[in-house]
């Protein structure tokens, strides 16, 4: 199956109406209530658990470029499943509201979700209900805050500006400070 067929096929299996396959990446959107059920349905077809992570869609940003147009405030949780025969794979996606960031755990379906969920929990502050181990995975025990949230500043950058700015390019979040004279790339 090519990615667009895969997206349609797996969306059909889990009964999801929204799916996409932009840039060859099959993605199926499932509602939060059917998150675990969708994984259970797909497990016989896609037994390989590749990863789980999240995106913080935020308009208030301490790092990176400011939003050009406002985004819908939410956490998007992604999990990537695949097979080990033809290379079919799909990303399942669900939205988690920021005022109640919680999602049932997948540990009962894919054991490998354990560490990935612990990582997303500490990095984004998402609560995975029913997770057997809520200790920090990467961060020290007493660490406060959720570093991958867009509102979490990168302190080293606050203390000292990035030395890479001597480069010809401006950094993300700065106005374009192109120092070069705009000569075109040399032809090979």
């Amino acid at each position: 199956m090519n990615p667009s067929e895969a997206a349609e096929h797996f969306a059909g299996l889990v009964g999801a109406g929204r799916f996409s396959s932009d840039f060859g990446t099959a993605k199926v959107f499932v509602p939060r209530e059917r998150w675990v059920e969708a994984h259970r349905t797909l497990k016989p077809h896609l037994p390989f658990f590749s990863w789980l992570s999240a995106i913080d869609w935020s308009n208030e940003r301490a790092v990176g470029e400011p939003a050009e147009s406002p985004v819908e405030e939410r956490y998007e949780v992604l999990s990537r499943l695949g097979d080990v025969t033809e290379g079919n794979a799909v990303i399942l996606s669900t939205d988690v509201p920021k005022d109640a960031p919680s999602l049932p755990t997948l540990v009962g379906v894919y054991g490998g979700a354990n560490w990935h969920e612990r990582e997303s929990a500490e990095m984004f502050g998402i609560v995975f209900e029913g997770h057997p181990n809520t200790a920090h995975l990467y961060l020290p025990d007493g660490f406060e805050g959720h570093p991958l949230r867009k509102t979490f500043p990168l302190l080293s950058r606050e203390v000292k500006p990035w030395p890479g700015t001597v480069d010809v390019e401006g950094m993300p979040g700065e106005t374009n400070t192109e120092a070069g004279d705009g000569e075109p790339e040399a032809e090979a």
Partner: protein
Amino acid sequence: MIDNRLAAIHASDVSVSVELETPEMTLNLGPQHPSTHGVLRLVAKVDGEMITSVEPVIGYMHRGYEKLAEVRTYPQITALVNRIDWVSGFANEIPFMVAVERLMGIEAPPRAQYIRLILTEMARISSHLVFLSSYPLELGAATPLMHALRERERVLDLIEGVTGGRFHPNFNRIGGVKPAAGGGSGQKKVLQDLPAGFLADTRKAMDEVDDVCDDMVNLVLGNEIFVKRTRGVGIIPKDRGMEFGVSGPNLRASGVKFDLRKSDAYLPYANFEFDIPTGANGDCLDRYWVRMEEIRQATRIVRQAIDGLPGGDLQAKVPRIIKVPAGEVYVRAENPKGEMGYHVVSEGGRGPYRLKIRSASFSNISVLPWLLVGQLVPDIIAVLGSLDFVLGDVDR
């Protein structure tokens, strides 16, 4: 007198047939322990010599690359990604480059793709050679290290000759490979291609790598102690491995004939003939054997790639300031450690809005709490080593 004592020892039942009552003990291993390849800590509960539970503690080397990527431009991230799994730095760059290129709708020219492929396979060879030689060392055999590291150094020299770096090549550019060196803005740039003699030297090095694999068969697989310490130890059943995201040689050792080089077209592997070696039992011995066979397949691919190396440009036309159109893409690659992939989320700017790094070793060792239960304490070392992880690839 002495004879009597000896006879008594012989007469005593040396195999433990009595259920010994031993209190449960907590055994801490690491974070500074030679067998952990860096800074992995294991907190094991043991009942005598038997492990009843294990809790790996990671994060001692967490460098926060996913956050750092959000404040860097795409070209600058190249320098970050080849530090993830530093034993095969070159291979880490490929899926990131392909992901960005796919979002931008450009493709590296054929010659650049072939150079990427040759160097990726050489990174695989050097990574696997480190494993082939250091794993027996952990089990008590020092000689193989001397043999395999010599050839690995030769491969690294060749990589260094092309890229300028042994461990962190930083050689890929969006749209191709590093095209030019020297020259200032006022001067005409001096074009850089593969160094003179690279192809012939590589061909010779590949023969020597094959030879060292033959040596390893005699030295290591012919060693009864090694075989006894690894056969039937640390078995990962297929289903369990897939559920935990165990990938690459570790999963193929469990009998899964799956290789992203065959299924995902991130480099022109379709142009070459090679086999996917698989194991039968999924034990430590199979994991060793699969990696050794993968080296032979890699040398086969490199030879074919040298024969078919096309001419032409090293770099596609890319804008001077790289801005990536809005969108999301996930590109994965078959790295020496397993599936390595990048999920790039772009809002149309000069740096990614979010970069998720899927590293192979992280998932590969996430199976440890399940895998080590019921094993003996000395087998911790055998099992850890056989998974061939790098802590930079675990912690990112």
